[in-house]
């Protein structure tokens, strides 16, 4: 079972996450997949220098046994919190979009935003006062 290490599984999780991130249209699912991608990085970092029979890095360890490297674990703590922050904020934004469009479908929202953008340009142009004389000038 040498091939079944944490790193391999982490990369499989990464592949699952990116696939779902592309294939599924629902924004909430996309965020879940994003969380999965981020977790895969963490699992990868944890398991990269790990070998079975290692003890947890808390002293005093059992005599004669190697302890796992504490360094990646300390890094990973930061990464977990960062992922939480990203998730909370993106969820808030998804909620704002849902409030506006009543949909979590990514393509629908994208389409609506693009239409809105086009409408915005047009409205600005028509709303402008004193448009007639400026047109004259450019001619």
């Amino acid at each position: 079972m040498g091939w079944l290490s944490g790193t391999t599984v982490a990369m499989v999780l990464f592949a699952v996450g990116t696939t779902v991130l592309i294939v599924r249209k629902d924004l909430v699912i996309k965020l879940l997949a994003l969380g999965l991608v981020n977790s895969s990085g963490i699992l990868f970092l944890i398991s990269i220098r790990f070998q079975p029979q290692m003890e947890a890095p808390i002293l005093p360890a059992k005599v004669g046994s190697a302890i796992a490297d504490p360094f990646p674990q300390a890094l990973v703590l930061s990464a977990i919190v960062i992922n939480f922050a990203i998730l909370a904020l993106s969820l808030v934004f998804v909620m704002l979009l849902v409030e506006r469009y009543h949909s979590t479908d990514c393509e629908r929202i994208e389409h609506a935003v693009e239409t809105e953008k086009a409408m915005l340009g047009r409205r600005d142009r028509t709303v402008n006062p004193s448009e007639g004389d400026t047109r004259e000038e450019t001619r």
Partner: protein
Amino acid sequence: MISRTVLLLLLPVIAAVSLFQRRRLSAVIGMGLFSLVLAATYLLHSSPDVAVTEAAIGAALVTIIYVLAIRRTGRLLVVGDEVPGLLALEGGEFVGLEVDILAGFARRLGLDLSIQIAPLCDVETILLRGDADLGAGGLSAVPAIRLHRSRDHLPTALVRLRPEADDRLPPEESPATDRCEYPGTSPISSRRSSAVNRLKRRSTWRAFSRFRGPTSRHGESTDSPCPGASRSSPPPGGRTCVISSARTSPSSSAAGAWTT
């Protein structure tokens, strides 16, 4: 060693299964479970600190926030006229029997309720235009309301749900509703039927609803309130259904017929 292998094998399976769920809530719960398994995996990789943090943040906090966030992502638009006792605006709030029913219905579906007041003569137009999902506010008191098949460019099914062999409808309603009825679609058996049942038992009411887009396709309510409609013609855009009940039908016996 073996437990580590099992957990490692379990991780992608849980992730893939939960991310390909149709219902968002299932996906969220599945990813919460994934986080727990991940925390156990960290523990078996001799990193208890990371395991504790992952369990606290990934499995608890994140899942709670997700569940809070996806609670209500849609809106149930109701249009109706003010009828004292049924639907009325008092001090900026809607009160009345039908409001209570609608609130319960919206809650069942996981939607936000939003009520608009419109003159009775416009309710039908608004509903048919698709600007609202349900009509309310003493609609049954006006026999003159006529229903039409939806416009042709909307692939919708207009379904009437009523007890089988219920011929005690007031005669003036029949021509209007019959025109939009699909045969053989009346018995409903779904989770939602209890909601409909509640509606029917408690009030004299009639509603037209057109459940639009994502709330019915991706949302909480993938099993639609009128399954007959989806069976007869799976509509891509939305569906319209009419829920109508007779004023005169005795509630207890009719309820039995509804939940077949």
